[in-house]
Structures are given as C-alpha cells and as structure tokens.
C-alpha cells in the first residue's frame, strides 16, 4: 500500500484556554488523506478543543496558549489566514440552534459560498445539488428553526459542503438526533467518505460511525490514551468499555435487562382514559384518544418521531397544559391540571433553562423555604447525587453532568409521584449515561414512577420496563422491554415505524 499524504499533522501539541486549565497535553496525531477518524472519550477530555485546532477556531477565535506544531496540508496553522479555513475545512456542530446564521434553508446552505465570493450562479447550482443529495429540496424555502433536528443537521452538513472543503470536522453531530435521523446522517457521511474527503468526528455514540471508521482515537484528560482499529474496539469486552467510559460500539443484545416488572406492586399510579391533548387552547390536537397507565415504581420509555407530541404530552401530564378531552387519574382519583401541578415533575433536556439561583443549595431550597424539613431533605439528596461538595458553587460553574444532577435533585425535592425526564442521556458519554441509568433505577426503587422521553436505546435497555411508541396522533404500539421483545424494540427505535 502506498503511503497516503498527511492532511493534518499535530506534533507535541499542548493548548490552554485563557484563564483555564490545560486542555490538550502533548498530542501527536496525523490524519491522512481520505481517512475517517472517530475521536471519542469522556466529556471534558479535550475532544472539542482538538477539533477547534483543525477548523481554525483555535487560536484566533478561542484564544489561549498553543505549544507544538499543527500543520494543515504541510502549512503551520499560524500562517493560515483565520478567515480562509472555511475553504479547506467544513465544520458541523452539535447544537443546531446556534450554528445557523440565516433564517431559511437555501440561504444557510449558500452562506459560505457567498462569504467567499463564489459566483452566484455556481452557488445556486451547488445549493440545488446539495439539497437534492440530502433530500432537502422540498425544504429549501423553509425556515431553519422550524425544521426537525434531523433536518437541521442535514442543512448543517450541506452548508459545510458548499465551498467543497477537503476536510470535515464535526463535534457530536448526532447528539440531538433520534436513531432514524442518525442513520441518515451516517449515509451522508458515507457519501463524503466515498468522495475521498478526510473526516474527523468527535462523538460519544459509536455504533453508527464504526462501520465507516478507519481509526478510533480515545482521549482522556487532554491526552490520547488509546487508538483502535474498528475491529479492535469491537473485540473489547464490556468491562473494558465501561472502564473507558464508552458507549456500546454496536447496537447489540444487552447482557442484562432493565428492572424486572414488579409483580409484587401492581398498583396503578396514573391512568389516562381517552385523553386528547393540544399544545395550546386554539391549536389542533396533536394526540387523540390516548389511554395507558403507569404503575408505582415503574420506568416507562416514550419514543416516536419528531413532532409526535411527546413533549406536549409531558407538559400536559405535569399540569402545565389542560387536556382537551378525556380524564387523567392519579392514584385512582381524577386530577385536573391544577392538581397535577407539583405532583408530577418534568426535567428538561437542557439544564441551562432550569437553574435560577446563585448556588446549588439555594437552587434546591427555592420554593421550599417555609418547609421545616427542607434543609434535611436537600442535604440527603445532595449527598446521594454526589453534589454535596459543590453545594456553595454557582450552578453555571458546574460541569454538564453535575448541572443535570442538580436538575434531578430540584425535581426530587418536590417529592413527586411521577418524574418525567426529557432525553436525559442525549449527548452524554458512556460513564455519565450509565450513571443516569443507575440513578433512574434508584429513583424508581424508592417508589417514584418514571417516564422517560428518549431515543437512546442504551437507556431504554438499561432502565426501562416498557416502551410506548407515539406516532400519527396516537399511541401506536406498546412493548415490554425484555429479552423476548429485543429485536422489535430496537427496530422500532431505528426506523420509527411500527411493524
């Protein structure tokens, strides 16, 4: 085999953001032309920082102290004009809310081309071609913020491709996607690879990338700690994966299943009878005539395509919205929206929306100031969730995992009968994901009924006993999460279509 040309060369690279700890320590990494490389490792290990060296955001946009040499096509990055990286490197980020600069799809795809002064006719052709390739043609005139997360990520990739760069850098591109959209993303990435592009993808979810990957780089604490060929990673035993804090590299039959169905506690906590819900008083119903029930201490997963009404259902259950028809019973008696408020708790995906106070302690005490045993409860919760040490810190100064646990603690302070969690494991590394799974099991064991909205099969298999699948205004199907139903549950989550 002929030696391929190096596209990215890093030699003894260390980097430290201004006023922060060292993020990268003595990195040596070379990427060759046409290579597909996965960058993985726990949160905070320096993956994102490494990608920023390649797309030019470090050191010109994010300033800090850079040591060692980074070469892009043999040229030191300090000698490359900061604004010209976009021609060589296409970037895709995790959060689709904050990566779009324009309002409609075609403008967003064209954006880079316009900035670099490409001929308008060329850009138009390119936009058309890219849209056709990624199935965005009918959406060209749609507003970007109204698209589903899967569509948004397609727009992000198309937008990065308009200048035809030879390298692509992506930072957790699947973090907000369901399994079906993740599959479509994998197809697009396969297309880029077949065109001979070089790809560096920082990611926690490995299963969809592994079939395409040439190498997997594992980072921890700012260092490259391991490097595997895909088959080597596949051969790692589960204990090793867990020790590395990695997610499963394949969608496989889990060794153990979630909690056993609690035969001893068949008591129903919540029952829905023919409930119809809509996101607003004057808006059309999004779910019609829904009936199901949840038992005490049961963990139930809710899944379904974007816009199927999962979040609206959660808001209705916890009393933020009134049901349009039908009845909702808690512990056997009918509970109107007002009565539900406070008995059910809803933890959203993004912690930033849910933290209001200036310290973790005050966050927990907010709204409980007048309760005699509040301090005692807060202390025991903080200890249980491993937050006691940081009780005096500002919530914004915590790590992502800690912030999320604070939102859990805030919910548990209210001693809810039912806890609803929205995508609690999206964007989490293997270690934090397992931690959340364990936490959910503990919460359920204490008698709280848990409802999880999720697209994460590892969470479904780790903690849930039942899966409810919503689609086309209704509860389409329902499965126990067990060894016998494993293929059907996975198929449902991968295709978002009932059999």
């Amino acid at each position, binding site marked *: 085999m002929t030696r391929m040309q190096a596209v990215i060369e890093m030699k003894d690279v260390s980097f430290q953001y201004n006023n922060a700890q060292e993020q990268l320590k003595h990195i040596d990494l070379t990427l060759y032309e046409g290579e597909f490389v996965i960058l993985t490792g726990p949160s905070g290990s320096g993956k994102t920082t490494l990608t920023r060296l390649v797309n030019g955001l470090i050191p010109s946009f994010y300033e800090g102290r850079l040591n060692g040499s980074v070469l892009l096509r043999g040229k030191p990055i300090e000698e490359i004009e900061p604004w010209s990286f976009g021609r060589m490197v296409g970037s895709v980020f995790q959060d689709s809310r*904050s990566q779009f600069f324009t309002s409609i799809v075609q403008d967003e795809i*064209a954006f880079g081309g316009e900035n670099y002064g490409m001929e308008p006719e060329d850009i138009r052709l390119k936009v058309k071609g890219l849209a056709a390739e990624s199935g965005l043609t009918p959406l060209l005139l749609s507003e970007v913020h109204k698209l589903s997360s899967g569509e948004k990520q397609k727009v992000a990739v198309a937008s990065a491709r308009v200048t035809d760069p030879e390298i692509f850098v992506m930072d957790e591109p699947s973090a907000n996607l369901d399994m079906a959209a993740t599959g479509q993303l994998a197809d697009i990435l396969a297309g880029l690879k077949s065109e001979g592009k070089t790809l560096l993808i920082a990611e926690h979810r490995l299963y969809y990338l592994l079939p395409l990957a040439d190498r997997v780089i594992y980072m921890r604490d700012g260092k490259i700690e391991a490097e595997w060929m895909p088959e080597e990673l596949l051969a790692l035993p589960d204990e090793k994966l867990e020790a590395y804090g990695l997610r499963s590299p394949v969608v496989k039959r889990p060794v153990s299943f979630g909690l056993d169905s609690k035969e001893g506690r068949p008591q129903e906590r919540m029952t829905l009878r023919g409930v119809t819900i809509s996101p607003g008083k004057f808006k059309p119903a999004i779910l019609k005539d829904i009936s199901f029930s949840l038992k005490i201490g049961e963990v139930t997963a809710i899944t379904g395509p974007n816009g199927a009404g999962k979040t609206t259902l959660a808001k209705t259950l916890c009393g933020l919205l009134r049901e349009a028809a039908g009845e909702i019973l808690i512990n056997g008696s009918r509970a109107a929206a007002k009565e539900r408020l406070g008995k059910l708790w809803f933890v*959203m995906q993004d912690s930033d929306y849910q933290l209001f106070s200036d310290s973790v302690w005050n966050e927990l005490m907010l709204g409980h100031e007048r309760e005699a045993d509040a301090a005692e409860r807060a202390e025991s919760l903080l200890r249980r969730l491993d937050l006691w040490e940081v009780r005096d810190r500002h919530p914004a100064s915590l790590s992502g995992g800690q912030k999320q646990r604070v939102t859990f603690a805030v919910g548990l302070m209210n001693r809810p009968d039912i806890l609803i969690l929205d995508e609690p494991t999206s964007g989490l590394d293997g270690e934090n994901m397992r931690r959340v799974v364990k936490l959910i099991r503990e919460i359920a064991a204490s008698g709280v009924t848990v409802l999880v909205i999720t697209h994460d099969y590892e969470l479904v298999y780790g903690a849930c006993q039942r899966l409810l699948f919503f689609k086309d205004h209704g509860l389409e199907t329902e499965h126990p999460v067990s060894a016998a139903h494993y293929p059907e549950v996975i198929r449902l989550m991968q295709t978002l279509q009932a059999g």
Partner: protein
Amino acid sequence: MKILIEADPRTQLMIVLLTSVAVFIADFSVIPWIILVVALYLFAQGIYKQTAQYLLAALALYLLQIWVSISSLEIMTIFRFLTFLGLRFIPVLMSALALARVPSGKLIASLRKIGLPMGLLVTLAVSFRFMPVMKLEYEAIQISARLRGVSVVSPKNWLRPLSTFEYTIVPLMMRSLKISDELAASATTKGIDHPGRKTSIYQISLGWRDAVLTIAYIGLLVAVLVKGGGGAL
C-alpha cells in the same frame, strides 16, 4: 403564500422611513388613514393575516381612546397617553412587517448594496435571526419557571418583582451568551470574516415595480396628509 408584488428590500426600508416621517408630522386625526394606506401596501404584498391582526389591534386602541376621552376619571389621562402613543406606533410597526419577512441572506445582500459597513450588517442580520430563537428560549425557560412557581405569568409573583425578574433574565442571559458565542464561532468557520468581495444568490435590483410602489405610496400619504390637514405641513 403568493406574493403579488415582490418589492426590493431597499424599497421596503424606504417605505418604513416614509411611514415614520408621515406619522411624525401627521395630525392625530389622520392616523387612521395612514394605517389604511399601510394596510393596502401590505395587502399588495400578500400579507393578510398579520395585517388583519394589526388592524384589529388599532381598532381596539381606538375604542379604548374613545372610552378614555369620555370618562371623567383623573387616572384615565395616563391611558390616553398610552393609546395615543400606541396608535402612532402601529403604522410604523406595520410597515416593517414586509421587511421582517425578507430572508436574512437577501436582506444582507441588499443592505450591502446601500453601502452599510459589514459590522453593522452582521449585527442587524444576527438580531433578526435571534428573535425567533429568543422566543423559543423564553418559552423553554417558562416551562420550568412555572413548575417551580417563579414564573412571570403567575400573579402571585408580581408581588416580588425583583426576584421574578431575576429568575426570568438570568437563565435567558446564560443561554444568550452561549448561543451568541457558538453562533459567532459557526459563522467564523464559514468565512464571515473573509475580506474579499462577497456575493449573493439573490439578484438585488430595483425595477419598475419598486418605482411604481414608492410613487404610489408617497402619493397616497401626501393625499391623506393634505386632505386631513397635516399639522406641521
């Protein structure tokens, strides 16, 4: 939605300026006529629903105005001031509706033609882009604010306005900081700082439609002002 007359964004900007001037110099009795002229302009561009909403709002303000003027209560004067201000503002807000619907790429391209500096352009474009995002952010924050009983919508929190304000603004600020930082990073990787010539997929050119629209608009405004006896004219 079918657009009957597609005006150049520069023309639409001109109309906003013209409307502001007209509202400024017009006698209060002429305001309804100006609102009517703006409504015609919006209908011509195929904007029906929002126009109708604004017309209803204007009507409501008028009724309030009449009620306030016949009432003898002292406190009503403050309402009178508010309705007065609202009615003068409505035509300007309405005239900006057409501009707000222009895709941001087109808006940047046309403002660039006027010769506005790039820094200002980027700021403008981002602010337009930011509004729907901020609305979504605010809604998401209010979900958990309501659960925790610190929402601005529940009246009991109006008694402690300071902390309620804090619980609304702090998360919003946190999110805005994060989003603006990431937005700027994303734009940087797409060459927003490229110093050379920039192009646009939109053809920006003033056509006879723009001339007709502007002349007709000025004509109508002048007619309304003269007939109604524009105060300062």
